[in-house]
């Protein structure tokens, strides 16, 4: 009896010490092959392709908020040079037209923002302008939503609420075919 059977002496557990190493190996593999991408951006719905250009001359000038960006990234808003910092406020005032100015949108549903750029405009400037215009609408939606439902506008809102707000202030941004003065 003094002699123990070898089975008793043997530790019947699997050695889990190397498990950590295996897991580390996997972890490092994933760290190397993956990227934490900032998959964020400005979502845009492009208009369907049509051969003929849409005719915006039929629109009343008072309802069109024209934004031109030239190849030097300078802005011309409704015929006047401005800075991108003022664009958001200008657009908001134009769309809402709180004082019923005769040269601004009749009502938010009729407001149209027309954006035109040059082929030489830098993408950075273009996106900054687009961002400001989108921000103007987002702020207007927020304000309206606060007024109506007491919560800021968000994608998690009930669909009916969102639709009601978007019907009242629709986001209409038309992009004209760019000019090609400054193509590099």
């Amino acid at each position: 009896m003094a002699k123990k059977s070898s089975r008793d002496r043997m530790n019947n557990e699997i050695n889990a010490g190397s498990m950590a190493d295996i897991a580390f190996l996997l972890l490092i593999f994933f760290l190397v092959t993956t990227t934490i991408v900032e998959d964020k951006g400005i979502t845009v719905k492009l208009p369907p392709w049509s051969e003929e250009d849409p005719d915006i001359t039929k629109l009343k000038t008072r309802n069109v908020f024209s934004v031109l960006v030239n190849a030097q990234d300078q802005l011309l808003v409704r015929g006047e040079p401005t800075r991108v910092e003022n664009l958001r406020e200008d657009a908001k005032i134009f769309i809402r037209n709180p004082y019923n100015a005769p040269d601004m949108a009749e009502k938010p549903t009729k407001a149209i923002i027309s954006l035109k750029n040059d082929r030489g405009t830098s993408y950075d400037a273009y996106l900054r302008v687009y961002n400001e215009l989108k921000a103007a609408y987002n702020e207007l939606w927020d304000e309206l939503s606060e007024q109506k439902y007491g919560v800021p506008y968000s994608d998690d809102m009930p669909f009916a609420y969102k639709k009601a707000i978007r019907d009242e202030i629709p986001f209409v941004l038309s992009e004209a075919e760019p000019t090609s003065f400054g193509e590099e």
Partner: protein
Amino acid sequence: MSKFSKKRGKTKPEVSTASLPDIIFMLLFFFMVVTVLRDAELKVKVSTPYATELTKLEEKSLVNYLYIGRPTQKFQSLYGTKPRLQLGDKFATIQDIPLFLEKHKIKVPENRHGQITSSLRVDGEVTMGIVQDVKTELRKSGQLKVNYSAKKDPNASE
């Protein structure tokens, strides 16, 4: 004296490492969930601009990526320094876009075709000319949902 040493010999003062794999696995799963497999090596320099009005792209499988930027140092001798389009892992021309979109489309179930988004990852310094051409081609191909990739503006006043 011998009493002490005997006692120490019996109790094993080792830290148990049995839970270490669990911790590492937790880390591993965390990384697997929050990251995406790198699908393409970038051959163009893409540094997306800053913006504030961002929406998050939810499902990675419904997104295809189009990169526009100047070729990186390595490829400049071959492709020059003009902004180029990269689809998947190779340089492409505007005419390759429809095929690229179609190849992505067959991997997506039919009922979700309408939810496919094209993520335009464009370098901030690129001029609009090439971006416009890509946009036009996307419109012609019926791919209308587009996301201009951008970074969150760190000095945004919110």
